[in-house]
Each structure stands twice: as C-alpha cells, then as structure tokens.
C-alpha cells in the first residue's frame, strides 16, 4: 500500500495503469482531459500494454470500444457531459451487446448553455442505458471504484458495462491523499479477462448485433435486466474481496451516523464530503442527524434503501441534476418510489443543487438540515421540490 497525492483524474488514470487494459479508445473533453493525458503518458512511456485509439469523436470512441470488447479484449475509456451525450446511442448498444467496458465519467453539466463545471446531468441522463453506475465521493473512491468496476463488469453473471463517476473539477482536479495498492495485488485482484464470445476467435465465428424483430427484441432486453439484477450480489461480493485488500468497506450506499438519526440527507459525489462535516458539527450540538451516501445508483438498491430510511422523521434528497418536467430529480424520484408500499410516510424533500458547478457550501447544507428540522417540528407537508442557492 502506498500513500500518494492524486487528483481524481490521476486516481482513475493510476487505476487504469494497474488494470492495464488491452485497448482504450477515447476523445478529450473537459474535465476528463487530464485523465486521458495522464494515461497517454503511461502509454508513451511503455508502462502499459494498452493500445490507445485517439478517436475522432466520442461516438467513434465508444464504437471502437465496442468493437475491441466484442473482439475479446479488456477495454476502458473515459468521458464527460456532451461527450457522453454524443455516444448516447452507443451506450445502449454496448450494454445490449453485453460488452464489459469500464468508463470513467467525470461529471459535468450537459449543454446548454455550455458549462464545463460539475453536475450529474450527464451520467443521470444515461441512467436508462443499461450500464451499472458507481458514484465516487472523492479521489480515493474513484481509484477504488475503477478497480472493482472491471471485476463487476466482467463477471460471467453480469457482462454489463460500468461507469465510474467522479465530480468534474471538484474531485477530478483536486489533489487528495489517496491510498493505492501495490501493482502486484492490484493486478491479481483484477485478474484476466475471460470473454464468453470473441470475434477474434475465427475458428468459432459468431454474429454480433443482429436484427431483432418483435419476436425476439423483448427477450433480449429481459436478459439485460437479469444481468443488472445479478450484479447486485456481485457488487457486494467484489466489495468484500476488495475490502480485504484495502481495508475500506464498499456497499450500495454508506450510512453515516444513521443509527439513531431522525433527519437525514441523501447525496451522491463530492457533496457527501461536505455533508459529513455538517453532520459531525450538528451531532456535536446534540442533533440526531445522519447522512446516506449513495455509491451504486444502477442497479438501484430499492429494498436496501427503504430499510435504511425506516426510522427517519424527515429526509432531504440532494439531486445534482434535474429531470425536466418530472416530479423532482432522479434520486428523489427513485427513493420515493422505493419507499412506496413499505409503510414509510415521512416528508421527503428534494433539493436540486449545484447545477453547472454552483458551489454547494457547508453553510448551505447546514441550512438544509435546519429546514428539515423545521419540517419535523411544524408537522406540515412542505414544498417537496426546492432549489438550493439559485437566484429566483
């Protein structure tokens, strides 16, 4: 184990170096750029065996990733925002072709207006594409998630691509203390890719990506759903295996000081780090507050989250993206849906925050908790959709 200073982008690049994929096809986009630049230096220095394809667009990058993965190679890539949007149709195809591609998504706001800063609209916009989504709180987790993602994706019960997210600029460009594994144990943990079918096996030719009519498409999609269902257990198993190496615990989400909490906040990504501090300060004041940090957003852990919320009096769900025209942001909608029918009936309030990189401070999150306190004390049903720190 080594302790190093790494930005989020460095951390993913470092994990990629240790994973040493056969192929990487990528296209630059802020704030992912430095991730690929770091990795490209590893390639130029001969530190990895990876063949790096500098594609002419993200759509071609993901297409080349799919070709390479289907060929039988271990494949990784990374992108952000409109790059992810440009490869949107290929995300669905990668998932339906069961290509175990691992992609770092450095979360950045989708245009328009054009904005290069952090929010979750990019990966949330792709939540229906059939990929597994792992959210990283900080550089450490970006590193840990990337290593685990390869094992999750390539598991023979799963064969589903995985995106590992990290907040653009806030995490991707911030230097943090990171514990990394030595190369040998990392390599051993990741192991070798064993594809089920490979185009390069010319002795056993296969046809991939056929045309389905109405008589088969539905069954093929149903099969994909099974892959995601099976990944629930696999995510936990891989987490346990990785815990033995790293000493860090991984699950669908983390419960922070939730044991006797009456009020909690759900958050994803870097805001979790800020919220932890707020919880500690409020706890020092005797408030019974807690935090739920979401790591696995797809597949959504509906049973487990409903279980975790059981004893609350109020919940604030922070969404760093919005689903226009829907009732609240994606995380809010799914948590409410998970609670339905379980008997839980406390106020759940959605805070849309941080869009386009709007800074979300300690004070604002503190105010969020006190608003929840007010909700509990008045017993009134509040406006369920709120916007944090926007000029109205």
């Amino acid at each position, binding site marked *: 184990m080594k302790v190093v200073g790494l930005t989020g982008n460095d951390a993913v690049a470092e994990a990629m170096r240790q994973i040493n994929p056969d192929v990487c096809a990528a296209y630059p986009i802020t704030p992912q750029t430095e991730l690929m630049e770091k990795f490209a230096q590893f390639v130029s220095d001969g530190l990895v065996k990876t063949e790096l394809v500098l*594609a002419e*667009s993200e759509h071609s990058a993901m*297409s080349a990733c799919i070709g390479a993965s289907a*060929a039988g190679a271990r494949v990784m890539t990374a992108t952000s925002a409109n790059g992810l949007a440009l490869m949107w149709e290929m995300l669905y195809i990668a998932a339906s072709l069961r290509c175990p591609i691992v992609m770092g998504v450095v979360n950045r706001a989708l245009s328009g207006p054009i904005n290069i800063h952090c929010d979750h609209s990019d990966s949330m916009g792709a939540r229906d594409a059939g990929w597994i989504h792992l959210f990283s709180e900080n550089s450490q987790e970006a590193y840990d998630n990337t290593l685990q993602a390869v094992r999750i994706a390539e598991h023979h019960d799963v064969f589903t691509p995985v995106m590992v997210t990290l907040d653009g600029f806030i995490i991707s460009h911030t230097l943090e203390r990171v514990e990394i594994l030595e190369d040998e144990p990392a390599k051993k943990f990741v192991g070798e890719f064993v594809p089920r079918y490979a185009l390069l096996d010319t002795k056993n030719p296969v*046809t991939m990506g056929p045309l389905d009519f109405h008589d088969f498409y539905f069954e093929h999609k149903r099969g994909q759903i099974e892959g995601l269902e099976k990944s629930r257990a696999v995510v936990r198993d891989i987490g346990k295996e990785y815990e033995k190496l790293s000493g860090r615990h991984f699950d669908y989400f983390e419960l922070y000081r939730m044991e006797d909490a009456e009020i909690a906040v759900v958050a994803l990504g870097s805001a979790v780090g800020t919220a932890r501090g707020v919880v500690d300060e409020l706890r020092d004041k005797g408030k019974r507050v807690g935090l739920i940090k979401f790591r696995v957003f797809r597949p959504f852990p509906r049973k487990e989250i409903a279980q975790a919320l059981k004893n609350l009096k109020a919940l604030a769900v922070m969404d760093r993206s919005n689903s226009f025209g829907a009732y609240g942001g994606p995380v809010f909608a799914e948590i409410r849906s998970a609670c339905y029918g379980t008997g839980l009936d406390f106020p759940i309030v959605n805070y849309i925050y941080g869009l386009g990189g709007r800074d979300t401070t300690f004070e604002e999150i503190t105010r969020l908790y006190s608003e929840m306190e007010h909700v509990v004390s008045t017993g009134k049903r509040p406006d369920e959709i709120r916007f944090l720190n926007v000029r109205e």
Partner: protein
Amino acid sequence: MASLKELASREDLLSGGHRACAGCAMTSIVRQVLLIAGKNVVVSCATGCLEVTTTIFPYSAWRVPFIHSAFENSAATISGVETAYRSLKKQGKIKEDTKFIGFGGDGGTYDIGLQALSGAFERGHKMLYVCYDNEAYMNTGNQRSSATPFAADTTTCPVGCVIKGKPQFHKDLAAIITAHNIPYVAQACGSFWKDLTSKVEKALSADGPSFINVLSPCVLGWKYPTDETIEIGKLAVDTCFWPLYEVVEGNYRLTYIPSQKKPLGDWTKRQGRFRHLHEPGGEELLAKAQREVDRKWEHLLAISEKPAKPGKQLKETPQ
C-alpha cells in the same frame, strides 16, 4: 490471382437463405470479397441492406465473425476490433494472421459514416473498407444519399412538377479517400468479378488502410428487371459513369477502358429512376449529366496509367 474455377470451388462464406432481393448485386459483391478474404477475417457492417437481410435473429448468413453495432460507425467499430487484435497479438495471445473488413452502404459511408471512415483511415488501421454503393438509402426505401447520381429520382428528392430529381452530382468518395494518403483505394463493380477480386487481393495485402467503392445496382431502387443486374453494372462502367480504377500509393491506374465508350443514355434509359431523362424535356438534364461524366473521364484518363488495350483489364505491375 485465382481462376474463376478455383474461386468457385472455395467455400462460400456468406450462405444462402438471406433475405436480399432477387437480383441484388450487394450479396454477390460480398461473396466475391469473402472468397478472396477467406475464413481468417472479422467483418463489421453498418446498418443497411446488407446487415438487415443477412442477420435476422436467430439466423445469420455469415460464416465468419461479424459485428454490427450502429449505422454510422462500421469503420470505427472494425478499427476497434483491429486494435484489439494488435494488442492481443503483441501480447502473444493470438498467433493467427487475421484480416479486418468493414462493410457499409453508401448511406452509412458517404454520409453519416464519413467521419468514422475518415478517422479510422487517418489513424492508419490495417483494415479494408468496402462500400457497396447502391446510390441511395435503399434499405429504408430509396431516400437520397450524397452518392445518388444527378437527376436520379428518389423518394426524398423525387421527380415532380418543379424539381426533377437530385440537383447535385454525386460525391466523389474515392477522391476523398485518396486524399487520406492510404496505400490502396479502388473503384470496382460487382459485374467485373476478375477486377473486383484482384482489387480485394491487393487491398488485403496493403500495409495499412484500404478502400474499395463497389457499384451495386439495386433492382427496386433503380427500377429495372431482376435478371439485368450484371448488365446494368457493365453499362455503368462502359458509359464511363463508373470508371474502374485504383490508386496504389498515390498512383492512379485505370484497370479497364471500355472498347467503345457508350453514351450515358444507354445506361440511364434502362432504369426507371432516370425515365424522365428520356421523356420530352429531359434532354437538357441528360446532356448535363453526360458533360459531367465526360469531364471526370477525361481527367481520369489524363492522370492514370492505362491498360494496353481498351476492353482489356490492366496488367499487374510486376512486384
């Protein structure tokens, strides 16, 4: 170069039973390509007639590894396969000598697929791209593409009272690809099997990207009887509308000159999509089309090495 008899004795790597139209040139072209390529090949294909007629789940006509991912990215997809091959071969995990061929129609190549093709060629992947050019989006019912010839009737640019079919000349894709400075570029036609197969052989032995644009007459879109495909292809070549040539390391070689250059009208009068050229009022359009054919042909004659005799195919340059 194998004889016709020898080629015909090889195993067909595209099986029968696919759903292509009676008289379709495309599948004949693919079979010719695969007879040269052999089994150690991986093929990608854009969405289009070829993909849709040959891979209706649970059936496939492909006896070689095949991948279709989307419409505009056959070149990008196969470039990924080729990269995986290089990576795994470098690691000693693969020993075979495998070829990589991307197929696409004119829609998936000239238009929506041009970026991916250009990118893959710029990167220098060792792959052959074969465009089967049926001069419109035929799979979806004959919508115009940038490969559609001047004045052709298509469903999105039909012959009407005011507009008489496509106003633009077709894009010169071979010239665009030649500008990428890849080792081998060619124009071919399925009706000339010897020319096409020898071009495939050359392309596959190139040390870098290669490209062949193959004219693929379409019974339903061009509107002619199903048994005339080979002849329609020959007429396109003999009228010099579709010259057969290759560009080898930047040097132009016309691989065939017709013994008698036929007027364009001999080709257009056989097809329903050009019917209006042969009706009163169509003379101007036909004349304009003829002038453009002649201009391009004269230019090609001026810059190309030529066969010794018209009607004969160009002798191979001794290696």
